């Protein structure tokens, strides 16, 4: 049973220079960002084929214009923010407050996770032909909120990124996406040689490697939202930084603050409430956000079962964090028009040890894939309303999803039966050298899953399937963070099966989905996120080539090919593409962000 999970993703290993991000976990969530800006070609989004049940909204179907201006929206969340500082934010709940108040260089409109729009930037980034220089021009007329008030310049963006490399901000993405900047290795918060501002409205990134595309893609991260150095410097001098307590805004809204700009205790009471009001310095002609609401009152705390009922039965309210399972059922049965379900909330798969033990044999991996009842696994997560049976690795909304097989996935026999097929499993076990069609190896295999429903339920199904195939298993459930940090993320532990791993990309780019979890170059001795130790030299080479490609279409096709090879080698066994439910009151015209788990976007949501 499911408590749908939002929020919280765990950044696992940030490998130096590895361009990608990650998240892990079935309680996973979200993330961000951008995709392929480069060629400026049209979108190749991957949404196709994900259909919502009749009467349920999705971010793709919600009208983004035509709302009524005015009013105050009440947000009832039981979770609190983690970080208000755009240099630190990385949970989806932080992003809900980040994008109405901050303007990164690029951001996504609510209905796409593939095509970023210029936000503070004036146009798409220009990537040089050697892919080692990325140039961005920023808009005129964007001003900071009080008490700073002045116009934003390219130096504010440079400072925002540079401070992210320092210990007091410690941006979790910096080394992943900006590690190829000249001087990034030694960056500690001061100026970085690879970031130049030739004039007040131009910023240029100089790279040591031809990774222009991934740097351009990463410009949707909140890290690129401008920070005024003369104002923030004194707060950044503290460790950790206190800039979040004095946050200034560039977006249509700002946290309520006093005349010195102090937010803490005024517009944000930790654990209790937050208030977003209009930013008087925001100029609508510079922005694509309609910003209908006058104010957003966020209340923090409470029981999600109580909150959910208040929202469904009341008015002017939304819940913008995870919806309780019972409330989801209630909303679906009785308040269906107030329910939104968003695709693109990440993947859930079973990591199997490709390096040693029985699953080093590709046919044994295929046998497990064939035998597994993915429908049952998905049902434990809430059924088909909130999941799709996962058939390959690039997930819905990410470019390359359709090219890699769409919802049905590659039509190989072990992928053809979502409810499992023992005949096919037996065939592969015979191919693996077990003539009876049952696994008869002597070694007991180690299965380490995560406690807490629905993960524990999924883990039990996987364990039973292994037994049905003839395996002797030692089955353990540990806390999810322990599962990653002590067992599944530590190759020396030699765990055979990790049934509860998952991924949500930071970007709407297929590289952000496939690279870290399946590239053999990224296997680490601790905090490893290539949980199955997948290390196929041919696939590694293709990834290295695909990483350098520029342009959505080319990248989508190249990474979709890699996805097909990953399925062909059955490097891991996928079972659920998550979707995320959100709820609103009857008189709220909510617009959710498909790139942020469907979370309601305060800049687009209005009251009826």
């Amino acid at each position: 049973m499911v408590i749908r999970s939002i929020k919280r993703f765990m950044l696992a290993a940030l490998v130096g220079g590895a361009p990608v991000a990650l998240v892990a976990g079935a309680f996973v969530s979200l993330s961000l960002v951008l995709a392929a800006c480069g060629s400026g070609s049209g979108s190749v989004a991957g949404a196709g084929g994900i259909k919502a049940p009749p009467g349920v909204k999705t971010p793709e179907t919600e009208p983004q214009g035509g709302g009524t201006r005015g009013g105050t929206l009440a947000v009832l969340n039981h979770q609190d923010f983690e970080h208000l500082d755009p240099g630190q934010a990385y949970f989806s709940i932080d992003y809900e407050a980040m994008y109405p108040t901050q303007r990164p260089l690029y951001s996504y409109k609510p209905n796409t996770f593939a095509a970023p729009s210029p936000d503070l930037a004036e146009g798409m980034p220009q990537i040089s032909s050697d892919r080692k220089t990325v140039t961005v021009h920023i808009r005129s007329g964007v001003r900071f909120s009080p008490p700073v008030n002045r116009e934003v310049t390219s130096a504010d963006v440079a400072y925002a990124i540079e401070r992210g490399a320092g210990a007091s901000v410690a941006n979790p993405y910096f080394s992943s996406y900006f590690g190829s900047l000249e001087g990034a290795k030694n960056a500690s918060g001061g100026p970085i040689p690879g970031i130049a501002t030739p004039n007040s409205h131009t910023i240029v990134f100089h790279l040591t490697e031809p990774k222009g595309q991934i740097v351009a893609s990463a410009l949707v991260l909140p890290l690129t939202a401008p920070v005024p150095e003369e104002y923030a410097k004194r707060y950044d001098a503290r460790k950790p930084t206190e800039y979040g307590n004095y946050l200034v805004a560039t977006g249509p809204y700002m946290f309520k603050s006093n005349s010195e700009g102090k937010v803490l205790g005024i517009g944000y009471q930790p654990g209790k409430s937050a208030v977003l009001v209009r930013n008087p310095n925001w100029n609508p002609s510079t922005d694509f956000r309609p910003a209908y609401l006058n104010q957003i009152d966020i209340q923090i705390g409470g029981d999600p079962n109580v909150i959910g009922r208040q929202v469904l039965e009341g008015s002017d309210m939304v819940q913008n964090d995870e919806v309780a399972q019972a409330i989801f059922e209630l909303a679906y049965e009785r308040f269906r028009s107030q329910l939104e379900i968003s695709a693109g909330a990440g993947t859930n798969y079973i990591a199997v040890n490709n390096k040693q033990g029985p699953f080093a044999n590709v046919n044994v991996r295929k046998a497990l894939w064939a035998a597994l009842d993915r429908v049952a696994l998905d049902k434990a997560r809430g059924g088909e309303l909130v999941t799709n049976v996962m058939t390959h690795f690039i997930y819905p909304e990410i470019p390359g999803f359709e090219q890699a097989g769409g919802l049905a996935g590659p039509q190989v026999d072990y992928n053809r039966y979502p409810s499992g097929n023992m005949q096919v499993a037996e065939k592969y076990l015979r191919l693996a050298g077990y003539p009876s069609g049952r696994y008869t190896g002597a070694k007991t295999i180690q299965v380490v899953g995560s406690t807490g429903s629905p993960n524990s339920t999924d883990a039990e199904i996987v364990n039973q399937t292994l037994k049905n195939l003839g395996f002797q298993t030692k089955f353990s459930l540990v806390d999810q963070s322990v599962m990653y940090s002590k067992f599944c993320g530590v190759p020396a532990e030699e765990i055979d099966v990790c049934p509860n791993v998952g991924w949500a990309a930071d970007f709407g780019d297929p590289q952000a989905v496939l690279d870290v979890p399946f590239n053999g170059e990224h296997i680490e001795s601790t905090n490893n996120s290539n949980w199955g130790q997948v290390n196929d030299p041919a696939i590694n080479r293709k990834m290295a080539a695909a990483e350098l490609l520029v342009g959505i279409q080319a990248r989508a096709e190249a990474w979709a090919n890699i996805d097909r090879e990953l399925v062909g080698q059955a490097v891991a066994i996928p079972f659920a593409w998550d979707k995320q439910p959100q709820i609103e009151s009857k008189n709220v015209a909510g617009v959710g962000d498909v790139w942020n788990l469907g979370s309601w976007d305060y800049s687009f949501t209005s009251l009826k």
Partner: protein
Amino acid sequence: MSLGAAELLPGAGAGLDFSEGAGPVLARSPGQLFWRRFRRDRVALVSLAFIVFLILVAIAAPLVVKLLGLPGPYVQNPNLTNAFGSPLGPSSAHPFGVDPLGEDVASRVIYGTRVSLIVGIAGTAIATVIGVVVGLLAGFFRGWTDTLLSRLVDVVLAIPILLLGLGLGAACEVRGCLGGHVQSGLGVIIFLIVLVNWTYIARIVRGLVLSLREQEFVEAACAQGASNARIMLREILPNLLAPIVVYSTLLIPQNILLEAALSFLGVGVRPPTASWGQMIAAATPIFNTAWWYMAFPGIALLLAVLAFNLLGDGLQDALNPRIAR
């Protein structure tokens, strides 16, 4: 009905009681006397019968499940959950409903009896043996032996057992601890139960031995040149049987509850093994939609604990007739 341990001493009257009934004096053994009194206690008899029933169910669980036509505790069936993944309730095929895996709750409650009884009875038995040995030595030899053992008891009693259980359960997960000798699940639970429970028995036994060793029959044995071992085992130990039986019986339900608590907290018996406490824990977040998943293991736990408690009380009464019922 709590009693001082000394009241259970045979020397204080329980063993030789000629006062019962009128008429000619009949010679009866202490066992016969006990049984005459115990069988008049209907509550205790019913409890005993229920416990015997539980033991039979535990031993013959696969047969019981088969006879009842149930699918067994490990049969998962996704067709028994609704579109949202919520389990279906009681029906003729599944009298106690199913859990989120579509497993039959009745089968799992029946198999859960095994865990509770193994933990309750085996854990208590081991603890009792250790406690009796320590108590005998401490009480009989007194002096530095007593000081050492009694301080050890004090130290062990100071250990916060639930916290230790949480810590051990987490630390022993996956790889086991103490070089793999203590594995999470039943191993950790029995280890904990033994660790704590022997101290209670040891204290009681020590106190009784301190008083028994001053009695004339011990002096007599001593005068005949009996060895210390013989005096402890043949003279003193038989006189301790009644209190040991009563107190260990009363420890069993505590231990069953401790297993349930640890399993509830996620450090006890792990799925797929069926345990009442673990079922109750798994049912907690979905109680509103699946009350049966918590109710039936909860009732089973309640009845088992109640039966052992009532049996313990009955034994106490029967072995110590001076206490008015």
